[in-house]
């Protein structure tokens, strides 16, 4: 197993000469700040089914919501999450051309050569009292060094003198009062690594708020952050795992549980009816898939906040028994304050988890009652049964599409911020292969969204598979074919796939997002 390790190394770094710091400043001011929701014009459901497929404009692509978007998916200026949607227009676009791209080198997960990493002076401090049950790894051990990726969270006025990193990529993310340092020997680009650090940063903020974080360091410059972060190691671990495996974090999008639209609509309206004054978002999850999301009018959730919530739910057993009630900061919404989330599974052994996000920390009983009312309504309208049935098939085999050479794909509707993807097919089912496929997509993604030379499409032949990626103003599409196919064949399947997605969009996407 490819373990990941992050270590909180705080107040133990050597002084750093400023000129040795690699520039990875997140404050990229050239990207305009663009906030608010994207609200495509109202359309009737029947119009869309007639619309042609490729060359789709944003808001009419398969999977676009009918009324308004649930998510903010415009990136705020501070993000390097690499959507590049704004940049697309500004920069010269290069077409994928004639497929002359060389085969993508596939990296070995672990380099054999003994790469040494000198991080002198960084020693493990004693585990703070009250620490969680996760044992910290000895950073002097071989095992620790063999991890593909290390993330350090530094704080205070410390500066690093040098990190000798042969064969390693070192990326810094400065987010006052923290500096996050990623040391990686994967072939990920700096932007990719920075995006991962950004997720980890927001993960920390979601537990503490930026206000509290700033405050503790104002009071005490050498505050040991591990006191506050104790016990959240499993959250960061899980997040790093998701970053390796979940296309949603790469694409800034969320995927849905396939569900007949009538069932989804019933669930949404039941959730909508079970409202309370303090409620801002009601989210029903099936594992890591969204069943539905109901939000307060005018409030939109950022996909990153949603992924942080998914991560919280997915990495804790604590909501399985009883009802969870926890302060949570949604950093893309507001870094200053806590929401209070009522989190509970609909049944103890169920995959279905309900998250009710409220503004009032004393509103537990009210929200608990919302859940009860929601369940009651769901049962009365026999949607619960339908939902249970849908859970039997949380995904679909790629064979349903009817393109024999197609092994896998990821399709994102830009305006809804939702994506769909079939089951991971047999050749990629083991953990390593799945991560390799994700890294291929990640590579394509970073090429497509290159800050200065973005591409509209790209085709790559590799030993084990052929890949095609395509970005339009309406969607992003990544396809993986068997290595036997040709480029012409790959291109010719796009239309067929888009037609299929259009035909299935009712089931695969949330077309009717609701507000209270």
């Amino acid at each position: 197993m490819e373990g990941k390790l992050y270590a909180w190394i705080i107040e133990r770094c050597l002084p750093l000469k400023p000129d040795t710091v690699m520039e990875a400043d997140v404050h990229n001011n050239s990207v305009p700040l663009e906030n608010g929701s994207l609200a495509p014009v109202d359309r009737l459901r029947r119009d869309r089914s007639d619309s042609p497929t490729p060359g789709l404009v944003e808001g009419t692509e398969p999977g676009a919501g009918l009324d308004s978007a649930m998510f903010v998916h415009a990136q705020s200026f501070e993000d390097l999450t690499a959507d590049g949607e704004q940049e697309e227009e500004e920069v010269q676009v290069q077409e994928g051309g004639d497929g002359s791209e060389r085969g993508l080198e596939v990296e070995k997960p672990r380099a054999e050569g003994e790469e040494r990493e000198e991080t002198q002076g960084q020693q493990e401090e004693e585990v703070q009292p009250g620490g969680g049950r996760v044992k910290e790894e000895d950073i002097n051990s071989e095992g620790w060094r063999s991890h593909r990726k290390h993330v350090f969270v530094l704080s205070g006025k410390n500066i690093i003198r040098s990190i000798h990193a042969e064969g390693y990529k070192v990326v810094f993310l400065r987010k006052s009062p923290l500096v996050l340092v990623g040391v990686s020997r994967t072939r990920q680009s700096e932007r990719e690594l920075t995006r991962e650090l950004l997720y980890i940063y927001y993960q920390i903020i979601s537990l503490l708020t930026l206000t509290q974080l700033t405050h503790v360091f104002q009071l005490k410059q050498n505050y040991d952050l591990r006191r506050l972060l104790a016990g959240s190691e499993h959250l960061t671990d899980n997040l790093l795992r998701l970053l390796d495996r979940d296309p949603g974090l790469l694409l800034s999008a969320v995927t849905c549980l396939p569900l007949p639209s009538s069932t989804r609509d019933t669930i949404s309206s039941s959730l909508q009816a079970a409202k309370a004054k303090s409620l801002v978002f009601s989210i029903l999850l099936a594992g890591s898939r969204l069943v539905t999301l109901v939000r307060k009018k005018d409030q939109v959730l950022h996909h990153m906040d949603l992924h942080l919530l998914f991560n919280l739910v997915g990495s804790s057993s604590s909501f399985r028994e009883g009802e969870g009630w926890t302060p949570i900061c949604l950093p893309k919404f507001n870094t200053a304050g806590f929401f209070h989330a009522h989190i509970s599974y609909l049944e103890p052994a169920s995959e279905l988890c309900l998250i009710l996000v409220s503004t009032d920390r004393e509103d537990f009983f009210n929200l608990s009652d919302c859940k009860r009312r929601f369940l009651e309504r769901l049962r009365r309208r026999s949607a619960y049964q339908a939902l249970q049935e849908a859970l039997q098939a949380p995904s679909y085999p790629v064979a349903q599409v009817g393109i024999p050479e197609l092994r896998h794909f990821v399709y994102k509707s830009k305006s809804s911020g939702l994506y769909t993807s079939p089951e991971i097919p047999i050749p990629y089912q083991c953990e390593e292969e799945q991560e390799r496929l994700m890294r291929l997509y990640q590579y394509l993604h970073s090429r497509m969204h290159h800050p200065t030379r973005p591409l509209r499409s790209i085709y790559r032949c590799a030993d084990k598979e052929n890949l095609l990626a395509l970005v339009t103003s309406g969607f992003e599409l990544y396809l993986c074919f068997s290595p036997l196919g040709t480029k012409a064949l790959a291109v010719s399947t796009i239309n067929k796939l888009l037609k299929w997605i259009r035909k299935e969009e009712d089931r695969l996407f949330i077309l009717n997002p609701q507000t209270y």
Partner: protein
Amino acid sequence: MMAERRLSSLGESPLEVEVGPRLLRVKMVLLGGSGVGKSSLALRFCKDEFKASTPTVGCAYLTQVVCLHDSTLRFEIWDTAGEEKYHSVTPLYYRGAHAALVVYDISKKESFMRAQLWLKELEKQYIPGETVVVLVGNKADLSDTRQVPLQVGYRLAESKGLLFIETSAKSGEQVSELLMTIAHRVKQSSSEVRGLIEWPEAECVGVLQGERSSLLGACCSVGS
């Protein structure tokens, strides 16, 4: 405010259990350092199970009904997170509690120190005799690596007039005894000092929301 809100949600809550002559609500809170076994104890109380667990996020709310010979108690258990980052919200849960369990891990001395801090914090909040406070030394199955002698725990509890017990959420040892003891104590101290909220079998909605609101309000403010 708080009382009203609780009232309305409580009134509509379904009764999962057959209600005896009197169903009384007991607010119970579990306090203590991270990893001492609070959630494991809560799971034993409610389902008599033991499972692997991750640290609690925020707080978990569970309920369990305990039948005594003349009345039935509905324990509303607040299983708090031991991690420091959640400490600012913990007062929400021990305020007005009828029972507070301060838990430590007998194999970790540090957790015993932390338990003492919790006791100090509780002392600021509760009126003696109104909240049943129990010092719980958990993980009694780990007596091979014990760091806190039984007598030390006992003496601390004695000096503060608290109940004391050693349990093992893992083996289940002494867990139901603990809950029954609390049930009796809560019942006893409540009949001496103040009434528990009664949850009538029929028409609880109307009754609770109507005439009884003052009683409930009074009850909720106790100890805060």
